[in-house]
Structure formats: C-alpha cells, structure tokens
C-alpha cells in the first residue's frame, strides 16, 4: 500500500514538475521578449527624440500647420512621437512574447486555452480601469468646482458621490470583462449604484429645497404661496458689475 502511495506521489510530483518545466520556458520567452523590445523601444524613442529636437520639429510643425496646434510644454509633438514609438515596441514585445508562450504550449493546449484569453482580457481590463479612474477624477473635479461656484454647501459630498458612481461602474465593468464573480457582481453593482444614486438624490433634493422654492416663487404669484418665516431672501448686488 505504501508503495502505491509513494508511486502516486512521485507520479504526481513528476507531472507537476513536467508541467512547470513546460510552463517556464514560455514564461521566460514572454518576459525576455517584453524586456528586449522595451529596451529597443527606449533606445529608439531616445534617438527619435534627439533627432526631432535637432531639426526643431515642434517649431516647424506649429509654424507650418494650417490649424494652430495647442501643445503643453511638457507634452509636445516630439515627446508624443517618442512615446508612441516606445509603447509600440512594448506592445510588440507582448505580442511576440504571447506568441512564444502559445508556441511553448502547442502540445498541451489546455493551459494555453485558459491563459491566453485571460491575458488579453487583462489588458482590456487594465485599460478600462485606467479610463474609468481618469473619468471619475475628471467628473469629480468638474462637479466640485461647478457646485462650489454655484454656492452649494454639499459640493464635496456631490463630488465624492459622482466619483464613486463612476468608480463602482468601472469596477463592475472590469470584473465583468474578466468574467469574475458572475451574477454576484451584477447584483452587488445594482445595489451599490442604486444606493449611491438614491443617497445623492435625497441629499440634493433636501439640500436644494430653498433653491427650488425660490425658483418657484419667481414663476408663481407670491400671494399664492404661504409665507415661510425661516426663508431669508438672498441679497442681490444689482449695482455690482464685473464687466
């Protein structure tokens, strides 16, 4: 009996080691391809940057273009071209690496069948995550500044609410893209999203009572409305002219 156990264990260990031995060259090939192409990309980008700086590419472009181009000093056309070259090389490295990885598993397609789609989905998920995070930050700032300039006391709350709405939506999209969680993610997303929307609606609704009542007062005859002893009319500076 012990012999059988020992045999089973040794066969299992052998199979695991063989699988690992098959897996490692593919992984090493992937890493090598990415590293080498990244180094090549950095070199090409540096060379291109130096060349474009020498020929004053930015100045020529802004002088000769029909439409005036508006570049930030830290994001000029030269830098953009260099970055495009660099990232193109990195992506090429990944493509070559994944192909090598796939080739290493030609005989054992099960691993390749699971890993490759997951790798491509992961890239998509990372892009979604970055885009969602940027969008959340942009919208949160927009709402915050607009709300502050509209003198809304709950400006920060509104901004944070919008930010989390977008982040929750992003997280749900990413998980859905990675096919993680299944219906649990949908359910959790629905509850969270609905909860945030309800909270914001209540907060804005309750906080904007004065604004709404003032707006209605402008349209409805004042005698129709019952007098509100707590209401204080906002002082308007009719004589103040900014322009």
């Amino acid at each position, binding site marked *: 009996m012990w012999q059988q156990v020992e045999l089973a264990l040794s066969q299992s260990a052998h199979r695991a080691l063989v699988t690992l031995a098959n897996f490692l060259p593919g992984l090493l090939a992937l890493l090598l391809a990415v590293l080498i192409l990244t180094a090549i990309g950095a070199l090409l980008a540096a060379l291109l940057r130096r060349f474009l700086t020498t020929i004053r590419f930015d100045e020529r472009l802004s002088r000769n273009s029909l439409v005036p181009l508006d570049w930030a000093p*830290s994001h000029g056309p030269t830098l953009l071209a260099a970055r495009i070259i660099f990232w193109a090389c990195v992506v090429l490295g990944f493509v070559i690496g994944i192909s090598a990885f796939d080739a290493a598993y030609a005989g054992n397609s099960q691993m390749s069948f699971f890993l490759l789609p997951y790798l491509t989905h992961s890239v998509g998920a990372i892009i979604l995550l970055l885009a969602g995070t940027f969008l959340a930050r942009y919208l949160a700032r927009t709402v915050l500044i607009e709300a502050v*300039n509209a003198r809304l006391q709950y400006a920060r709350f509104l901004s944070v609410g919008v930010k989390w709405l977008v982040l929750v939506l992003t997280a749900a999209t990413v998980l859905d893209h990675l096919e993680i969680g299944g219906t649990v993610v949908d359910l959790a997303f629905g509850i969270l999203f609905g909860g945030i929307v309800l909270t914001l609606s209540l907060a804005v609704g309750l906080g904007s009572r004065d604004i709404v009542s003032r707006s209605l007062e402008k349209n409805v005859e004042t005698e129709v409305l019952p007098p509100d002893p707590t209401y204080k009319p906002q002082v308007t500076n009719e004589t103040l002219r900014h*322009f």
Partner: protein
Amino acid sequence: MASTPTNTAAATPETSSTASTSLLIHLSSMSPEAVEPALANLAAAFPTQNILVALPESAQPNGIETAPNLRLLSYTPAAASATNWVLTAADYFNTYKLALENNASVCLLLGAGGHTLETESIRNLARETLSSQADLVVAHYHLGPREGLVNSAILYPLTRALFCSRPRFPLAIDVGLSLRMAERLATAAQRFTAQNQEDALLWPVSEAAAAGFSIAEAEVPKRAIPQPASLDLNALLNQILSSLFADIDVRASFWQRMRSVVGAQTIPTTSPLTEALDVTPMLDSFHLAYSNLHEIWALVLPPHTLLGLKRLSVMTPENFRMADSLWVRIVYDFVLAYRLRTINRGHLLGALTPLYLAWVASHLILVQSGVSPEQHIEDVAQAFETDKPYLVSRWRWPDRFNP
C-alpha cells in the same frame, strides 16, 4: 517698445484739418432702433467731414433721412453669439475689409451700444486717431467703483505689467485704428474666422505692443457699457481669461523681454460710494471654496500663497483684506498653470472664480473705508509690475523650487 502717449489735451474741434482723411466708422452689434440716434450723434460729431459709416445689414435705416456727409455702408455681421457685447474677430476683419474697399485711412470701431456715446467722446476718439499718430487709440471710460471689476482686477494690471502698455481698458469696446493696425488685427482675426470662430476675442493692446505700434487713449466719460447676456460669472470669466491667457502664452517671447515700467498714473477722481454694499455672499463663496477647493489650488499655487489664503480665510469680514502681492501671485500662478496645463484648463479657471470674488470683496471693503478705488487699482497694477520677474522666472524654469 510701443510708446504710450495719453490723451490729456483739451478737446478742440479739429475736423477741418483732417477733412481730407477718409474716416470709416464701424458700428457693430447695432439694433435697428439704435441706428437713428447713432447716426444723429455721428452727424453732430462731424458736421463738416465726410464719413463712411458701416452698419450691419440688419440695421440699415429704412425711411430715416441721414445727414448728407454720412455715406452708409453695409456689412454682413457674424452670427449672433454670447460675445457680441465686446468686439470680436469678425468685427476687426469686417472693418479692415471695408476700409480697403473704400480707401479709408483710419477706422473707428464703436462697439455694442455705440449710440449711447456722446458727441464729444466720438470726437475725442476720432481726433486722437487722426492727429496723434497713434496706431491704436483705446477708449478710457470713467466707470463707477463697482463697475468693470474683472478689468480692474486682472485685465488691466496684467496687460500693463506684461506688455508695458498704459491703456486702462485693454478690452475696450470703442477703438480707433490706423490702417496698418487694422490690417494687423484683421490678419489675427482671420486665423479665427478661418476656423469658424468669428466670435473669438482679440487683444488689440498686446497686438499693438508686439508690433511696436504706438498706443494712445481717448477719454470717453459717459457711455452705457453693454453687459453680457449670460449672468454666469464662472462661464464669462472662463471665456475672457482663457482668451487672455492664451494670448499671453503666444506672446511669451515678446513680454519676457519687456523690462520697462509704465509708471505712476494720475488718479482721476471717482464718485464716492453712496451706500455700503453687502460683500457677505462673496466672502461666503470664498470660504466655501477654501474648504472644498484647497486640494485643487494646491496643484496650482505654491505653499507661500496657500498660507496667504489660509490667513485670509480666518479674517473677519470687517478686516478682510487681500494683500496686493498675494493677488498678483495668484494671477501669475494661474497664468503659469494655464500654460503648463497643470490641470484641465476649464477646471483651472473655474477654481479662480472664488479667488476673484475674494479680491472683489477685499477691494470693495477697502473702497468703503475711504480709499480711492482708482488708487487701489493703481497700487495693484504697480504690484503686478514689481512682481513680473517672478512670472518670467517661473515661466522659464517652472520646475524650480518655489516658496
């Protein structure tokens, strides 16, 4: 550098000496009802001189008898937009085109509400344009202490410090142009009109300064200043300041070389405030912004300025006073952040609005305490001039440590 003589001479009728000069007067944004009084004013201002008067197609007088010395021209105005209360790229372009077609040597552009200009003011503008050899004559309005505050806080001091130009109203809506100035402005306008941005703003003072043209001012004591249709201060500030900051960005190589200082101006007397103005809403706006926008300001402003704002936030309304040096640094750092795109430009200018309101509140409190508003504006302008090396330095080396 552009010389900047100021119109201080007493008004004397001088039309006879310039009778041979062809003068084109361009009336922009003119409603049909305003045509009759506008033409009557022009006829009274130039009783003996032949004048070309350009009117928008929609405002051509029907059944109105015009003075024989006024020759009416018609032009197609730009589509109605929110910026029709100031002179736009289309106005400058149309003026130059008409001046060329009709061999005019001098142009006067009278902005929206031009019919409210007094005869003497029109004559002042024309005389200065015809006789002073200045390429650009800008109207100098006499506004009350609560009017034209954006101009007093930002447009005037910034333009004066950077372009070393004297005009008190860089975005004046009544200007006189020599033909070469009109041509230069039309060329600048064409860049916008070619992109269908006919309502873009132009900055004639910086254009003239960069070209080395001479600039003068003409007194326009009374005039109804047109107000923008939109009451959204945030949107209006965004529109005006983004145009000004973009213009500053484009002309960086020019204004960094300008080292001269305009010098102290004579302070005109202004009507005192009859009643105290409630500045509480503006202070509330600043305090709300201080508690919410601090992290956005921290991306734009250096620690020393943030410290100044912190001190400002704890001041009582009676003692609320924004130091001129603090305001100068705020504006300069926002100009710099606009150039560097530190944050989204719309966000940046939105974050400036509460700071501007704080300056307005501080200015009004100071004026109510008895200080002459023009004296304070002059002090602010001088502070901008004094601190110009800071902007130049940070413009050239933005990453250098700043306090």
